[in-house]
């Protein structure tokens, strides 16, 4: 199933989709394509189940990236589909926006087991409450990391004291 067919499938199911392109190669110019799909946070489980069911190949999960945009936190679930053939693969990203005052999202670790580390990571780094996460421990931060501080945030809960050592040297000089 190619990128256009996948796009159509999601559009028919009522999702907003768009494609971005980038050319690679010198003698053999090829187009690398990325499919973006906007998903409402309530529909995340439906979208993922729908994706897994219609994909001919088990989707390859890559990573969840997470950005603090002020009042909104944006989550991107990156996947790749179509490996195994020359130039047949494309990136597929599900975009979900969460309001800052309601940072909750359903876990999809039962649908794609490889996602568990990323869900643990967004929980500790961005303070997102992943509902029904099978393992809610810290992933990369130590267990004594202060609660209520989230390194990826750009608001008052972000990290402020990382520069402490450097700042102190500056003061002494």
């Amino acid at each position, binding site marked *: 199933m190619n990128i256009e067919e996948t796009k159509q499938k999601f559009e028919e199911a009522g999702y907003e989709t768009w494609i*971005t392109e*980038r050319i*690679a*190669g*010198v*003698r*053999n*110019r*090829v187009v*690398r394509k*990325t499919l973006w799909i906007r998903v409402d946070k309530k529909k995340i489980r439906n979208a993922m189940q729908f994706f897994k069911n219609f994909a001919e190949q*088990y989707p*390859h*999960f*890559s*990573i*969840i*990236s*997470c*950005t603090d945009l002020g009042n909104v936190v944006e989550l*991107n679930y*990156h996947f*790749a589909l*179509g*490996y*195994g*053939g*020359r*130039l*047949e*693969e*494309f*990136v597929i*990203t599900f975009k979900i926006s969460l309001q800052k005052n309601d940072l909750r999202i359903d876990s999809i670790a039962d649908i*794609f*087991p*490889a996602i*568990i*580390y990323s869900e643990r990571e967004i929980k500790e780094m961005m303070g997102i409450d992943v509902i029904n996460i099978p393992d809610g421990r*810290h*992933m*990369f*931060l*130590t*267990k*004594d990391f202060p609660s209520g501080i989230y*390194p*990826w945030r750009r608001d008052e809960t972000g*990290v402020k004291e*990382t*520069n*402490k*050592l450097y700042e102190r040297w500056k003061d002494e000089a």
Partner: protein
Amino acid sequence: MKHDYEISVGPIHPALKEPIMLRVTLEGEEIVDVDVIASQNHRGIEWIGMNRNNVIQSLYLAERICGICNFCHPSNLVMAIEEIADIEPPERAQYIRVIQGELERIHSHLLWAGVAAHELGFDTLLHYVWMVREKVMDVLEEVNGNRVTKAIIMYGGVRRDITERHVPKIRKMISYYREAFGKLAELFLEDDTIKKRTRNIGVLKKKDAIKLAAAGPTARASGVKKDVRQDFPYFAYPDFDIHAITPDELIGYTIGDVYDRIVVRLLEVKQSLEIIEEALNEMPSGEIIYEKKLVKLMAKIKNSEGEAVARYEAPRGEDIHYVMLKKGYEPLYSWKVRAPTYINILSWRPMLLGYQIADIPIIAASIDPCLSCTNRFAVVKNGEEKIMSGEYFHKLSVEKTRRIK
């Protein structure tokens, strides 16, 4: 009567080289459960890239995410930024990038082969492989001026050309490795002891590899024909006929054990030699950078806005960076780095279950794990754990200097 024991391998353990912890539950010698505890350190690289550095500084920071993969991470960042800012690198630069990437793959795979030999207790082989590896390190030094952190890639091209002076040396290296390949293959693949320690050990079934999103040689050794250079090519890779290497090419079948991971890496060294040779033959002439003046380049990037996902087939597997830029904001607005080990450590569990304690080092090493360096450690005294930070050590050090003054 059955006894369960729990042992910890790590946080710092001679078998793992880098800080990570495996909590293993045993019944006798057999491993019945595995828990990976990654939170041994966090360097906050993404934070620095998103808050403190400008984009050019972040390029050198990306190079320091991993010492071995010091070309992959900056390459990914460069690809993402070039896509957002619509920068088209010159043709020659795309070829030089391919050559640099493949030189890195050769040195990384040979480094791994040495470590694997060491984990099996075969230290003469470790020294032999690392001696052979020196050849590619010499070429890296000759071409880049440095063996490890090479600072070769730049937004819109590369910083140094591969000139007529370098080409004969690279060709000499290719023929050296072609000759050495037979001996390496014989030592690794036909030695009885290595076979006994790696055949049917640490098996990762194809369906598990797919489900756990394994990447790179770990996935390919289980028969998953997945290679970003083939599936989603970047730089000048579409010009080359690259296919994902699986162990059945050499031995006719795939098991997905540690032995198969050795086979895949050895064959990939051979594949890299072919790519480098073709790239040298076909390399177009011309410029190597889109914009020489860094201030102009910075201004262009600073005025760009958007987001992009970049993927790169690193020696250990697929490397992914997600980047978002905001107009007028100097650092990266969002930066997510996913190194291949991040996803490959998920495969440790199915690989280890059912095997013995003595197999832990070679199985753990077989995915070629790459963790980061240390900035704190834990002291456990009377069951109580205390974390000591870099800052605390700095304080101790200052106090000691004052004391002895």
